[in-house]
């Protein structure tokens, strides 16, 4: 399982990369592997505002459809439109080309309930 060190992870298996006041969000390698082949992604519109923990879309595989939740609150500035035609990018490159949305943070993000890479690895091992 690939788990980059520079990301924060949620219990619901999303990752977030903080860069200034912009956060990039996707789902983890563990999550894409558990879901299996992803065939459809539903994403929000640019400008939509969400609170931390809100469902902002869903990821559908041949096995199941799962809601995805925002690990930090903010306003959507960009969505990965490439996923519309190529949702399999989430499977092949979950931390790169398979990102889901970028949000503009409203103030300093609350990261207190998120995990670092080693805590997330341990969390996944115990499931």
């Amino acid at each position, binding site marked *: 399982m690939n788990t980059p060190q520079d990301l924060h992870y949620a219990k619901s298996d999303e990752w977030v990369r903080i860069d200034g006041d912009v956060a990039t969000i996707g789902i983890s390698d563990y999550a894409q592997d*558990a879901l299996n*082949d992803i*065939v*459809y992604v539903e994403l929000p519109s640019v400008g939509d505002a969400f609170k931390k923990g809100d469902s902002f879309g869903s990821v*559908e595989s*041949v*096995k*199941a459809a799962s809601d995805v939740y925002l690990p930090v609150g903010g306003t959507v500035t960009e969505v990965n439109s490439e996923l519309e035609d190529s*949702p*399999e990018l989430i499977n092949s490159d979950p931390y790169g080309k398979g990102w889901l949305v970028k949000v503009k943070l409203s103030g300093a993000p609350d990261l207190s309930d998120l995990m670092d890479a080693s805590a997330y690895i341990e969390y996944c091992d115990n499931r």
Partner: protein
Amino acid sequence: MVEALEPLIYEISSAGRVGVNLPACDVPESPLPTDLLRDKLDFPEVSEMQAVRHFVRLSQLNHSIDTGFYPLGSCTMKYNPKINEDVARLAGFANLHPHTNPEGAQGALAMMYQLQEWLAEVSGFAGTSLVPAAGAQGELAGILMIRKYHQDRNDAQRTKILVPNSAHGTNPATVTMAGLEVIELPSDAEGNVDLTALKEACSGEKAKLIAGMMITVPSTLGLFEAHILDVVKTVHDAGGLMYMDGANMNALMGIVKPGQLGFDVMHYNLHKTFSTPHGGGGPGCGAVGVAERLLDFLPGPIVKITEAGTDDEAPLYGLVTPSKTIGQLKAFYGNFGMHIRAYAYIRAYGGEGLHEVSRHAVLNANYVRAKLMDTFTIPYPRYCGHEFVLEGHWEDAPSVHALDISKRLMDYGIHPPTNYFPLIVPEALLIEPTETETKQTLDEFIEVMKKIAQEAKTSPELLHDAPHVTPVSRVDEIKAAKELVLCCAPLLKTVE
């Protein structure tokens, strides 16, 4: 483009060909309104023999309970006695027009009344509506009743419904459809609802927002909720109502009544527990049973005795709409043909018989589970209800997944179990043998499962490429999901 195994009936059609010669009309002809007449009807024109062969060939491409074992968990694919079909086709039932006034339909109403009473008796409820057309509509009826109950008491801020994470996907969907909100609850290590999390969700001020809880008993893991009385009490103490998803009622008949456990409302799947046909999206019946306090909210119409009978005369039955009903939900009285089949089934078994049905369903599931325990990982190793979950994966056969096992079972003439559900079990295979299978069939299934486990380790490619002997081999599920084509080619041409 995949080559079709059987052409469409339109593709074998030839203009002017006739399959049936209609007899001369023996009633006066009545002209139809001209604005309803069409010049061209797009009907296939085939001979009788072509029609027979076409449909028989299609049926042979299918797996059915009439041709093989069907251990599809959570679906209760029991054998539906053929006599149910004879009874549903009795002219007095089959030819009855839905607009017939109640005085002219007393037999049908008496049958529906009796079925309502029997379902209430089996589950310990005060009343039943037969109207909902399927399990999902029964769920919706139940949650709409809970919502209206709170509104009626000026307690409309109760908008949260608790749903365990092992629930059928229809449960949260129902809550959303009803305009309420889901609070998902985790399961504990034993597969029960996590009581601590439940109590936390119902604590303090939060209690005032709880509209109710939806729970399946036994759960979708096939396990009886060990703390069910605690769960019911916690939600009731918070002011919420308890909804039971009755999909797994086949484990409970004559053993425990949901009404006596404290549930307020439940839907039945007549097509699961009471042997009416599944499939094709209906017609089904998701009858709902309710406790006393929800009686006035039932979807109508309900059959009631409107004039008591005497020793010599039958009572008079009529159709009644409850005073605070959530509405009608379905045209006329629901799917009447299903009521007849379920009636025939219950009538044939009787109370003792239904008890035996559940006892055998539970025994069969536990027998198969015990025999497969050494070959497969069973995530919750305790006695199960009428179904059980195992993990379709081994550490020493890492390339083999639950889906491969399912596909390989088809080579042995067995319908795959439910796979990848419940979601909380990795590589889940949910197996439900039902009461209608013999020990001989169960033993054959156990042997096949063990053989597949062996194959997974020695020749995994056999599983990866399975099925090998079915009319259609392994389908490309990703392509099917991504490039969905819902029209067949010839019809597409006419659209162009």
